């Protein structure tokens, strides 16, 4: 598998803190890599360094497995933190400027505007755009010239639910074309929905990395409910594969040992005359994982 980006013990120190600390990761071609962390965890700083706008205090990174050069960035479409455009220029002129820097045919402007639904508004000044439209324009600019890699820092920031869904679909479609995507986000469901790999960071340190399915299905969680909750609790704790239990609103959240399966558990409940009204195998939500892992790091 080709490595698109390799980061090696990257550190960025600001006078008062380490924004990124000994971060290492490697991103394969074609993956959708999520950089997940709460506010201030160093996502933007990391992306800023790999995009050449900030210098690292120590550590290295390399794009496309070779020595870095600024022209590599012409093969990367990026949105970093905020849409950066001239407010007094039309959206079209702004895209023209980006296209010219990247050496892309100006015809591509209409295509990317179509993707983000801004075609009718291209001649309007950037300052007349709404927040969501500005964000879309930034995504359009990142898409110019079909880049090999897309770096998106909180791409759905400021979008309404429909806009969020549209942008996610755009990301998924682009990913199907083999484009590598690096996505920074603090929204867990976003990473869960669109990413294949994830690195969770807090205070600039990597807490865990791996494929989303590995990170997500770390544990065996089952939601179960019945009319007699107390009896259910009692029986459940006696199950051989039982590990932990938590009472949620209308059901019990049962954690099973890795070795035991949900089928065994349901059989066990039936043989113990529990009439189950609700039984759902839940992959561990990133959210729970996230709160757990970032709480005390």
């Amino acid at each position, binding site marked *: 598998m080709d490595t698109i980006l390799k980061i090696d013990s990257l550190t960025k120190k600001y006078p008062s803190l380490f924004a990124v600390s000994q971060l290492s990761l490697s991103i394969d071609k074609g993956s959708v890599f999520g950089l997940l962390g709460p506010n201030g965890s160093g996502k933007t700083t990391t992306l800023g360094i790999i995009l*050449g*706008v*900030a210098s690292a205090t120590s550590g290295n990174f390399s794009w496309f497995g070779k020595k870095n050069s600024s022209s590599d*960035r012409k093969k990367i479409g990026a949105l970093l933190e905020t849409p950066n455009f001239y407010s007094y220029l039309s959206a079209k002129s702004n895209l023209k*400027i*980006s296209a010219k820097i990247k050496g892309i045919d100006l015809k591509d402007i209409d295509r990317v505007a179509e993707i983000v639904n801004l075609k009718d508004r291209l001649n309007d000044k950037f300052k007349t755009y709404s927040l969501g439209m500005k964000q879309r324009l930034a995504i359009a600019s990142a898409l110019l010239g079909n880049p090999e890699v897309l770096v998106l820092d909180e791409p759905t920031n400021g979008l309404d639910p429909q806009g969020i869904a549209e942008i996610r679909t755009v990301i998924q479609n682009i990913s199907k074309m083999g484009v590598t995507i690096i996505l920074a986000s603090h929204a867990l469901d976003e990473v869960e929905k669109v990413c294949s790999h994830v690195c969770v960071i807090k205070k600039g340190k990597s807490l865990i990395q791996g494929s989303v399915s590995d990170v997500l299905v770390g544990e065996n969680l089952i939601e179960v409910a019945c009319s007699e909750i107390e009896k259910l609790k009692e029986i459940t704790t006696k199950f051989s594969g039982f590990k932990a239990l938590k009472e949620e609103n209308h059901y019990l959240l049962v954690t099973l040992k890795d070795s035991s399966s949900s089928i065994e558990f349901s059989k066990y409940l039936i043989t113990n005359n529990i009439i189950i009204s609700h039984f759902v195998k839940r992959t561990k939500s990133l959210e729970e994982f996230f709160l757990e892992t970032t709480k005390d790091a």
Partner: protein
Amino acid sequence: MLDLISIEYIKLKNNSSFWIILVFYMLISFYVVGKADSLPAGSDVFANPLQFPMIWLTSTYCASFLVLFPSILIILNIGNEFKYKTAKQHVIDGLSKTTFILSKFISVCLIATIITIYVILLSLFLGWQSGGEIQDFFGEQFSFVTGFYIQLIGVLSFAFLIAILFKRTGISIVVFVGYYFIEVILYYLVFKDSPIRDYLPLEVFNSLTFSPIKDNLDSFSGLSIPEFKLSLNWFSAAIGAIYIAICLSLSILIFNRRDV
């Protein structure tokens, strides 16, 4: 390269404050140059400062007096790149930091070129109006247009450096104007008896245009007026070019060393 020029052109062309300041500068300099013949100390040797070839001195000298306007243009132009974070975006999009500075320097050259062409046209117009001899059009005095061009690029490069250094438009303008006062203090007080004072940057740039007024001619190099042919001091021009190179190199250095 052509792409970079066209990018700067898009940014300037659509910027209304650029046009307002530029047109304002053009109108004022036209007015000031046109009024030059009514100055009491107008040279009696060269009769009329608006006739060829003296018009080249008059127009460049007057226009260079108003150099604050194009300097503010540059400071606004650079300040925009920081205000809109487009400096950052350009680097993200694939310009190296050095190329970014060079591309911005295109704006300096673009503005200086537009103004110089304007001053040439203005001089031709006024010179022709005051009935000068056609053969004197491009006499040696025309070299002051070159001097003016270097002076413009020089002062604008200095404004450029300040704008890169301070990022914020307001602060940059204050520092830029403040430096004029600093240099006056250096010139008249600190380096009063030292030859260094002739090598202060703004002094060097100022020496590239020259007042056509009689008093000045008398003191110029101690030559007596009748045998003296006024032309640009090419040594000063060379020093000016060095200052421009220093401003540009420092801008590149500063921008490269900093997170955008």
